[in-house]
């Protein structure tokens, strides 16, 4: 079992003729994901490195039954690409693009809210259900199929925890990167709800970071509704206030959004909070008795 993506996922890649889009479309396909083709406006009717190319997302939906869009469109046009996919009725829209202007995301999020689509990201590694489908840029080979759900705001730190889990022979049900931007489509709470309801997920590993209050919201939801063990790590414990630590969303502003506050909120909600990023895998192992 899994959340969000599985063997029935049919992916259309927006921005497939770009370097990143083409490279990752091929990696996803190699992993076994059904990649039905891509979209680049003006290049419809051609093929690119073996993939069919359409002018619009709507065509990919009509002709190939695409039910998931994976976006590599450059920042200036990425919010528009998100809106195009959701207007075309694609139920799951995953945006990898980093560096989208905040004001564009405010509008795009409002637009998506008026459709039936779910947006993951932007500025995220995507979603993988090991052994079934990889819809994103994560290295597929480090994952193992299993029953720990992983969710995170960071990309490479997710690979780190997956590496630690797989090394202990602990597989993952699905791994979801929600992205490091201040305005994103799907929150920790949304993904926690999915993992909580997924019979194939036994425990949850959540990786947060400084900035905003998404982790505090997650803590409140965990306390009220999550019945499964949750292990949490917050990165940025040593970050100075007022400086943006790479991710647009990772900034301690006005004394708010510190790692200490988030760790306390999670611990108060019954989450097993890990201090060192080197201990994430071992802590999950201990919590699930493995």
């Amino acid at each position, binding site marked *: 079992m899994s959340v969000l993506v599985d063997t029935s996922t049919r992916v259309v890649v927006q921005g497939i003729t770009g370097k990143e889009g083409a490279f990752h479309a091929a990696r996803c396909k190699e992993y076994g994901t059904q990649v039905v083709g891509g979209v680049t406006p003006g290049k419809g009717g051609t093929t690119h490195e073996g993939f069919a190319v359409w002018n619009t997302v709507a065509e990919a939906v009509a002709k190939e039954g695409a039910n998931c869009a994976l976006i590599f469109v450059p920042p200036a046009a990425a919010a528009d690409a998100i809106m195009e996919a959701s207007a075309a009725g694609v139920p799951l829209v995953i945006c990898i693009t980093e560096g989208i202007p905040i004001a564009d*995301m405010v509008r795009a999020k409002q637009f998506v809210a008026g459709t039936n689509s779910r947006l993951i990201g932007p500025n995220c590694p995507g979603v993988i259900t090991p052994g079934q489908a990889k819809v994103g840029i994560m290295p597929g080979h480090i994952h193992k199929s299993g029953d720990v759900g992983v969710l995170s705001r960071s990309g490479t730190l997710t690979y780190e925890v997956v590496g630690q889990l797989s090394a202990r022979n602990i597989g993952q049900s699905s791994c979801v990167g929600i992205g490091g931007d201040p305005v994103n489509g799907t929150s920790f709470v949304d993904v926690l709800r999915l993992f909580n309801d997924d019979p194939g997920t036994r425990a949850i590993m959540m990786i947060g970071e400084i900035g905003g209050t998404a982790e505090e919201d997650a803590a409140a939801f965990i306390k009220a509704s999550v019945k499964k063990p949750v292990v949490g790590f917050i990165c940025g414990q040593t970050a100075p206030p007022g*400086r943006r630590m790479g991710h*647009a969303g990772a900034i301690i502003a006005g004394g708010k959004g510190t790692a200490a506050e988030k760790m306390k909120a999670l611990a108060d909600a019954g989450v097993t909070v890990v201090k060192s990023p*080197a201990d994430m895998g071992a802590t999950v192992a201990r919590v699930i008795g493995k």
Partner: protein
Amino acid sequence: MKVHEYQAKALLREFGVAVPKGDVADTPAQAREIAQHLGGRVVVKAQIHAGGRGKGGGIKLADDPAAAERAASQILGMMLKTPQTPAEGIKVRKVLVEEASAIERELYLSITLDRGRATHVVMASQAGGMEIEEVAAKTPDKILREWTHPALGLGDFQARRLAFGLALGGEQLKQAVPLIKNLFALYLAKDCSLVEINPLVVTRDGRVFALDAKLNFDDNALFRHKEIAELRDIHEEDPLDVEASKYSLNYIKLDGNVGCMVNGAGLAMATMDIVKLAGGEPANFLDVGGGASPEQIENAFRILSSDPSVKAVFINVFGGILRVDRLAEGIIAAVKKLGLKLPVVLRAEGTNVEQGKKMLADSGLALTMASDMADGARKAVAFAKGQKP
């Protein structure tokens, strides 16, 4: 990105937001001329990006042009220290000379993103001139908020509600409503991440205008605002940060002595954390990004090792898009070119890791390999303390 007050006020003026009359000066003589032109009492204000300038001696009143010249000569060139500057202060290179006003009330007005609601919020308070975080903490009911519609923006009724909440009526209301609307138009048109007017003042003769102005811009949107990007003042930034930004590297200098080079912002923060847990202090945050080229790696290495406080380097990479063999290529090129003497600890995992490790082993470089993050941090911290790990 931040800009100076005088630059912010020029933008406010362009968008029809009232500001005091004034101009910027590089020399005391220019300050005198501006004061002469303005006539009457003036304020001479140091132009640095940090707040709290008044308490540090960076803002002075002057009754006549000669006094303005004297004030400017005291402020220009000084190392201005405020709670928001580095300990040694920031050198003042420009002053803003403005007409002084007889102030009746000081109010607060700002616009920023509300992350939780995923839209822009306009905030106002009658408690202007104070630290707004303090007002928010002690008396949150004294801050008014109007959340704008993500697509439709700020309604007239919302601007009126804020103005009434600030106890502005009659002629002042007629000035305040368009001021608030124009300020929001500026915020959107220029992709600001923060507009803060503290204080917004009402003068004894009934005028409403922005006495101070702080504008921050969304770095992600600078590509479509060349005119804003040109306002960047690199004197206000750490030279190593400026150098790193040339190569699209995310680098922030910190106070420790363990240089860190990592791919991905989350892993970079976690690496700083684990260095600290191992008893050391990180010298920097450095994210070389997901798809760094060997050239970027080489420059990253050069920049982080040019910080004289760095005593050891910890490279922590989990290769995804960034392949470990490309990382190795960059490291080998950098170390050979720079003739680097610092101890380097490498922890690498992920795509093409075996190939990358072999390249490094064959290169003959004196690297210390680490088995995992904790091991790498421990070894790097030991080197930084002058010990053998």
